[in-house]
């Protein structure tokens, strides 16, 4: 065990208060159905360019997350955000109106996990009462940047993944705030028969940031295979250091490994004697109805894990249906340039343990 194989434990109980989700048309029609806060029928969100659409999605997502708490943005001490577009312009433009100190992130599709970890750090340390983690991806803007023009007629390989059009904003704050803050108390006491708009029982318990792993995969149409070793590496380190085994968790969910990466991660870990059972799932497999929507290997992109975690996993943790969840945000850290130069794709997997508390 190396000195830096370390799990960060959060004693001061950083909690996730609420999240806002914004989805595109395909995600709205997907396996999760209409559980998102807002969606656009033509994926434009009323904007003239795809890049501006993505910015608008981030703005809407954070607005929804704040509205659920009856907060305005001044309650946020800090926000972390990132996306896939060059120099993270979607976040830069999208969150401009909130007037909150902003730290931009790049973790490719792992940005959500990275943002949650940093928000938990900063809240746990007591520097701020609440911080936001925001991320987004848009199929059209990503397709333009990483692959071909949108109308270009090409055939996708079965291993290719579909970049999710979606944005998620998560508000992380100190747990005790739920009993102190007047706005939260009044938001919490929703009228009977209606679900509470905010989460009261979700805690970020632990985090283990990943290491960059590169296994020689150069094919940008098989990102699952590039990311699987990174997810396996983080899980292996986590099980080793914590002394736990996969059965101890209700759900182990990876960000966007999709069909190929999900299979390879199971196989890599099986090689090391760790057998993941039916509690091992992947956001890229959950978000779409793969057969019906012809999604090939599954979903990918920052929005993939953001939408699934916010709309599917967190509500279940809040209700206590899931009590102990490992979320591994996976990211392929390549750029169009590195792919053209034929460099292998480096990948990363950040682990966050979410518990019902």
């Amino acid at each position, binding site marked *: 065990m190396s000195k830096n194989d370390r799990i960060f434990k959060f004693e001061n109980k950083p909690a996730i208060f609420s999240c806002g989700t914004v989805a595109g048309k395909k995600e709205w029609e997907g396996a999760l159905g209409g559980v998102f806060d807002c969606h656009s029928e033509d994926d434009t969100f009323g904007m003239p360019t795809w890049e501006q659409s993505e910015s608008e999605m981030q703005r809407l997502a954070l607005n929804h997350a704040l509205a659920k708490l009856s907060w305005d943005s001044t309650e946020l001490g800090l926000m972390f955000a990132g996306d896939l577009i060059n120099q993270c312009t979607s976040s830069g433009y999208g969150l401009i109106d909130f007037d909150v100190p902003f730290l931009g992130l790049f973790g490719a599709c792992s940005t959500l996990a990275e943002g949650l970890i940093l928000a938990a750090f900063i809240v746990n340390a007591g520097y701020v009462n609440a911080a936001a983690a925001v991320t987004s991806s848009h199929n059209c803007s990503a397709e333009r940047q990483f692959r071909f023009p*949108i109308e270009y007629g090409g*055939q996708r390989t079965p291993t290719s993944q579909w970049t999710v059009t979606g944005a998620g904003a998560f508000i992380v704050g100190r747990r005790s705030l739920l009993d102190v803050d007047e706005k939260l108390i009044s938001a919490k006491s929703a009228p009977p028969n209606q679900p509470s708009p905010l989460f009261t029982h979700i805690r970020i318990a632990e985090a283990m940031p990943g290491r960059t792993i590169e296994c020689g995969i150069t094919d940008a149409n098989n990102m699952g295979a590039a990311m699987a070793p990174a997810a396996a590496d983080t899980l292996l380190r986590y099980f080793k250091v914590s002394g736990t085994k996969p059965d101890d968790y209700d759900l182990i969910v990876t960000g966007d490994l999709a069909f190929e990466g999900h299979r390879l991660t199971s196989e890599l870990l099986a090689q090391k004697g760790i057998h993941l059972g039916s509690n091992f799932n992947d956001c890229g497999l959950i978000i779409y109805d793969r057969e019906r929507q012809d999604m090939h290997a599954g979903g990918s992109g920052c929005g993939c894990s953001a939408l699934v975690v916010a709309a599917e996993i967190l509500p279940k943790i809040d209700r206590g249906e899931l009590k102990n969840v490992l979320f591994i945000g996976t990211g392929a850290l390549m750029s169009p340039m590195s792919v053209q130069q034929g460099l292998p794709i480096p990948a990363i997997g950040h682990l966050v343990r979410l518990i019902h508390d």
Partner: protein
Amino acid sequence: MDYLWAFIVGGLLCVIAELLICYTKLTAARILVAYVVAGVVLTAIGLYGPLVEWAGCGATTPLTGFGYALAEGVKKAVAERGIFGALTGGLTATSGGIAAALAFAFAAALVFKGKPK
């Protein structure tokens, strides 16, 4: 009869590209480049000319036909103008097609707006 051969030869040239898509990691752009260069080479060694005679548009419509036009143009121009024909022949023979593609693409960009898949 000419329809049948156009269908079979054109279809088979597309099948070769499909096999390249399925079994190699060649991008579409590389396949197009390979087809054009292959068209020039096959014409130069005298194989593509007979195929065009035989299959008509089945051989000229695929991008190898673009290579055929380049090579035929150069051949004609070299016969007429000597070494200068080597520079002018190819693009002169294909200028119509290239200009049409650029003009229609520009027009499409003026009229249409991108939409999601």
